[in-house]
């Protein structure tokens, strides 16, 4: 049961017939804080940011309506295009690798494994600490000029380089950091693997199916809803990554904009330069990109995700 399947169910459910609702008053009372939040902190700000996206606004003067100017500016903004490219590379390389690793480790940990809680904790720990500034600080050192990686390379006689200070490799170090935090999807995979009845595998091995075949004929098909769920959420999450790029590059997105994540560029425009109109337009583009990818994901899921019913 996940947010994803809940949404799918809601779409499938028949239209409710008109009838009396018995708990109208207590219902809305219990929901009051949330309703206030929905309108005051979510919907109203969304409308405001949609409006601001068509204005020039620096916090001090009143917003000035400039129509499509922010959008044409976005079309001509090379740094923006670069930040989209950086983010896409990060998301579409980092997420699949992370999911593959988390599934592989979950498979290894699944059946008849002793000391499972120990391993599970060890693999989960990085994903819990991974989004902290402390880990970003650590990464900056590990992949720095005199960092851990180069110290190890030196021992085997390879000359290192400044991994985070070179535009060719800086983004890769952040992708490695993302992959390293595979514990969260792994735990979800583990829960999914537990749901597959043992007898399927027993029946298959009586029929003489190899491990390899069992994996593709039983494990993967039965796991597709979980794979889909992890994919949707990891994609949405990865698009919004900020902390690591901010800390590792000292807020600049450097070297040479190679780690200028979309969110980081948005932060720079909005909160360093107080170019609130442009930043709002950027925020809406981000929402559109994430929604489009999520919708495509749901649409594609019809072709590869199998539900029991």
């Amino acid at each position: 049961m996940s947010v994803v399947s809940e949404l799918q169910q809601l779409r499938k459910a028949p239209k409710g017939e008109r009838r009396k609702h018995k708990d109208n008053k207590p219902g809305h009372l219990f929901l009051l804080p949330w309703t206030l939040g929905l309108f005051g902190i979510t919907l109203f700000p969304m409308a405001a940011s949609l409006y601001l996206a068509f204005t020039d606004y620096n916090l001090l003067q009143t917003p000035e309506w400039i129509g499509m100017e922010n959008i044409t500016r976005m079309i001509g903004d090379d740094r923006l295009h670069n930040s989209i490219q950086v983010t896409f590379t990060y998301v579409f390389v980092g997420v699949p690798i992370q999911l593959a690793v988390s599934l592989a480790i979950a498979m290894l940990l699944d059946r008849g494994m002793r000391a499972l809680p120990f391993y599970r904790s060890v693999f989960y720990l990085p994903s819990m600490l991974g989004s902290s500034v402390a880990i970003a600080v650590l990464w900056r050192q590990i992949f720095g000029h005199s960092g851990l990686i180069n110290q190890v390379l030196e021992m085997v006689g390879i000359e290192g380089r400044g991994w985070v200070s070179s535009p060719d490799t800086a983004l890769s170090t952040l992708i490695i950091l993302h992959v390293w935090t595979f514990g969260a999807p792994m735990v979800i995979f583990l829960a999914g693997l537990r749901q597959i009845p043992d007898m399927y595998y027993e029946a298959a091995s009586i029929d003489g199916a190899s491990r390899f075949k069992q994996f593709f004929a039983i494990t993967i098909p039965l796991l597709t809803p979980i794979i889909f769920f992890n994919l949707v959420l990891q994609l949405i999450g990865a698009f919004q990554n900020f902390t690591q790029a901010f800390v590792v590059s000292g807020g600049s997105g450097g070297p040479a904009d190679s780690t200028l994540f979309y969110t980081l560029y948005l932060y720079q425009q909005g909160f360093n330069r107080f170019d609130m109109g442009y930043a709002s337009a950027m925020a809406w583009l981000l929402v559109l990109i994430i929604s489009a990818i999520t919708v495509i994901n749901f649409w594609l899921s019809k072709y590869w995700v199998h539900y029991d019913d």
Partner: protein
Amino acid sequence: MRSTSPRKRGMKAVIKHILMVLASLVMIYPLLWMLVSSLRPNDLIFREPGILLTTLEFNNYVQGWNALSHPFSHFLMNSAIVVFGSILANLVSCSMAAYAFARLDFKFKKPMFALMLLTIMLPVHVVIIPQYILFSNLGWVNTFLPLIVPKMLATDAFFIFLMIQFIRGIPKDLDEAARIDGAGHIRIFLQVILPLMVPALATTTIFTFMWTWNDLFSQLIFLTSPDMYTVPLALSAFIDSTGESNWGGMFAMSIVSILPLFLIFLFGQRFLIKGMATTGIK
């Protein structure tokens, strides 16, 4: 039913364990190395990839603690206030909303539920700019209010969802019985449902702790005066002020900053992993 002999299976298990131990080492090596480096003199950090401690040097901790405009305890305190406020706010407002969605029948429930699910996936960036303008007009920038008040209004919808899932698992007979005894919804919520949903509340507490403690983005936006800095801001200011010259102090304070997370992890593991596995987010 598998045809392998016990001996062969034993061998396989041994190989598997060796692999897993190696993988585990790779996973936690950077963390161990950071811990060890924080206890080493600065010049050793730059040429010691191993994790054997030859000297025990606490100077990094002393020196890092006092490297910024305030002692590090000040930032820990600020983070503690934000985290504690956020936890309390989430527990109260999300459990109320969850009770309504899981147990009550009211008008507009379905569209509201759908909206609630959608807000879970909404990027914060699309609301952060108007929120900033709003809070700055209210004079709330450089206070902890912008970080806590939204949570009082149940904007962390993920926890509502988590609690709904949990409440759905509580037998309805219990509320019916209380109803027959004359209890209203407030009493059923407080005296029947809340005590039974302690595991969900614990999960919420732990996740709120983790996410708020680590959250750089919104703290960076709403807290700009060093007086109000929280731990993530202090650490990131540390880099700015000392550059690459003081890794020892930076690592020492990094260790201090993740220690609370680590403790929460140790004590709350059961809830954390269950909460993740059943509702699975992040």
